[in-house]
């Protein structure tokens, strides 16, 4: 696949790190140190409490991302780096959105929420708060559809992503990681 190395694309990178303070700073520092903005970042503990998983979405060229991935590998606290962008992967974000809902428009809003399988998590006489989960395009679509009604507040989580199938963080990697830890424990993905 001929790739234009200087074309700016959005990259999704998953990183397994030691679950210690300062790691988040070091990783995000790698991006900010080069003047690259992180579009979204999410991080949480995995099943192994000593390991955390970060999902970063950033915009850069292929050349830059290659260097960034190498530099990430270099960090002492980084255990594994996976560029999910061109791999088959599933990604989800969650959105909490409060939209103005006057009596005339309440029914329409509920219909839209239903179509997107969003949940109503709060109700007031003049507004609804929705919780929506989905991939990036679904989230963007519902925001656009609800915009005409008057969106009062929006909170979005970062993207989390996981590879499809057993290609990345394979059984072989799993066993290797388990051996390294010395105890047969899963590290946060389907066993």
């Amino acid at each position, binding site marked *: 696949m001929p790739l234009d190395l200087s074309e700016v694309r959005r990259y999704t990178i998953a990183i397994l*790190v*030691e679950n210690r*303070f*300062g790691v988040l*700073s*070091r990783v995000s*520092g790698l991006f900010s*140190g080069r003047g690259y903005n992180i579009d979204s970042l999410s991080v949480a503990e995995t099943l192994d409490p000593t390991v955390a998983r970060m999902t970063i979405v950033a915009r850069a060229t292929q050349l830059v991302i290659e*260097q960034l991935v*190498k*530099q990430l*590998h*270099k*960090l*002492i*606290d*980084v*255990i594994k780096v996976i560029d999910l962008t061109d791999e088959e992967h599933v990604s989800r974000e969650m959105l909490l959105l409060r939209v103005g809902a006057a009596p005339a428009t309440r029914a329409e809003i509920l219909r839209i929420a239903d179509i997107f399988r969003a949940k109503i998590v709060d109700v007031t006489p003049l507004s609804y708060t929705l919780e929506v989960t989905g991939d990036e395009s679904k989230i963007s679509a519902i925001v656009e559809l609800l915009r005409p009604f008057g969106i009062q507040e929006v909170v979005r989580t970062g993207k989390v992503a996981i590879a499809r199938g057993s290609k990345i963080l394979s059984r072989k990697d799993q066993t290797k*990681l388990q051996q*390294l*830890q010395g105890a047969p424990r899963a590290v946060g993905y389907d066993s």
Partner: protein
Amino acid sequence: MTGAQIFCESLKREGVEVIFGLPGEAVLPAYDALFDSLNRKELRHVLARQEAAAGHAAEAYARVTGKVGVCLVTSGPACTNLVTALADAQVDSMPIVAFTGQVPTHLIGNDAFQEADNVGICRSCTKHNYLVKDVKELAPIIKEAFYIARSGRPGPVHVDLPKDILLKQGEFAYPEKIFLRSYNPTVEGHPGQIKKAAQAILKARKPILYVGGGVINADAAPELRELAELAQIPVTMTLMGIGAFPGDHPLSLGMLGMHGAWYTNTAVINTDLLIAVGARFDNRVTGKLDAWCPEAEVIHIDIDPTSIARNFHVEIPIVGDAKHVLARLNKDLRQLDDGSWKESREAWWQQIKAWKAQHPLTYERSDEIIKPQFVIQEASRLTSHLDPIVATDVGQHQMWAGQYFIVNKPRHWVTSGGLGTMGYGLPAAIGAQVARPDKLVIALLGDGSFQMNMQELSTVVEERLPLKIAIVNNLAHGMVRQWQELFYNRRFIGIDLSVRPDYAKLAEAFGILGLRATKPSEVTPTWERALAHPGPVLIDFAVDPEEACFPMVPAGAAVKDMVLAKPKSEKPEEAKARAAKLTGF
């Protein structure tokens, strides 16, 4: 034991013999424990007069001995002063562990006295850093810190020690081994790649060995020499790689890069096989990247995978420790060698000799005014039988030293390359002399650079270090002046150091023999007198302020567009007039 005692014990276990430091309130418990170590002659403490100097001394100590350098300073401003040295160590890959004091854990974040976000500030300029939050973690952290500092691509590791942790009681249990699941540097190169490299070397008609500081970190000088001699390959060194190959060896082309010799850079850009070992294709070496080595196939041997193919294409990358990789490469070469390269190599060397004759490294001699290159050449000549350790500061004098001081052994050249830290030279010379009290250590400094850390002269006297300190005094920030002269139309600003202390008198005030030379005829006798003097000496060499460092590859220009000497044949009266203004005080 208290945390402070655990600290001292851990250092002992790591084989630390010297600590460079400067105490302060937050770190007093550590110093109190050090007091006992000192009395038991287990550790030596060298008091710096400014924290960056403590860091630089630790760096030089590491470079000269191959061990991990250690420095200990207090919290707040001490840590921020140390940042320069940490950044310097990171860029130049020097293994040091820097301990900083910190306010007690319950005060962190409260804007306490001398508090700073030490770990946050040092995060981006260290290989790794730690804040010790529990006395139980202290010994394992120290063990990890030393391991990380010295392994893979060496670098600075910072450990922040809150005061209450140092006072807490804890069990001392020094881990036998540690294993970091997330950090596993590759030591052995890929055998297939190495074989490929051997084949490429035997096929090459115009090969060049381009070696950097990585060869010195790996102690791979013997393997490098074997490789060069096996296939008669010309060797060029980066500023950080000086000494990796003997400077007086017939196969040596000296330093390359922005101020490398014309023939060296010309040979490099005409190569068909560039063998890079422990070097990182820095922009000071390559100049304009797309114009560098247009015909070359590149072999890159480096322990840091991020260095490989970072700036320049690499056909045969080999990740591994230079010593191990070169040893294997030499074996493969000997196996595959059929002598078919000999003929083309003869032609290559003839070409290089012709280039060398065409534009050798040269400067205009003068009997009226001291030329800085002459000062350095004389020092090199007078001490060549002694294999001195040379420490330089940053600037024109550093480039001249790289060009004219012949260094034949690794770990005998100490300089600030990547970061170019002015003020590095004197503390580095201190670190080098403390590391090798048996050796002659020469410090080549500029007048601007000297003034940045001249307070360290007290340390020189206190520790009785017989340094020979030469100030290449051109009354200016010479390198900056050169750039303003060449690229900013002689619009000189901020470079005039004619308002200055009498350096020789200043030395005497510190308790050091101060000498001055203002005429070319005085240079050799002054050096001889300094070298004969048993204690430390400082020499103020009043050199030609107009002399610039050539050849030069202008920033961003292609290497082939190197500027040779300024065409300047001065009348003797002009030189005399200039010299007359330099008779000191």
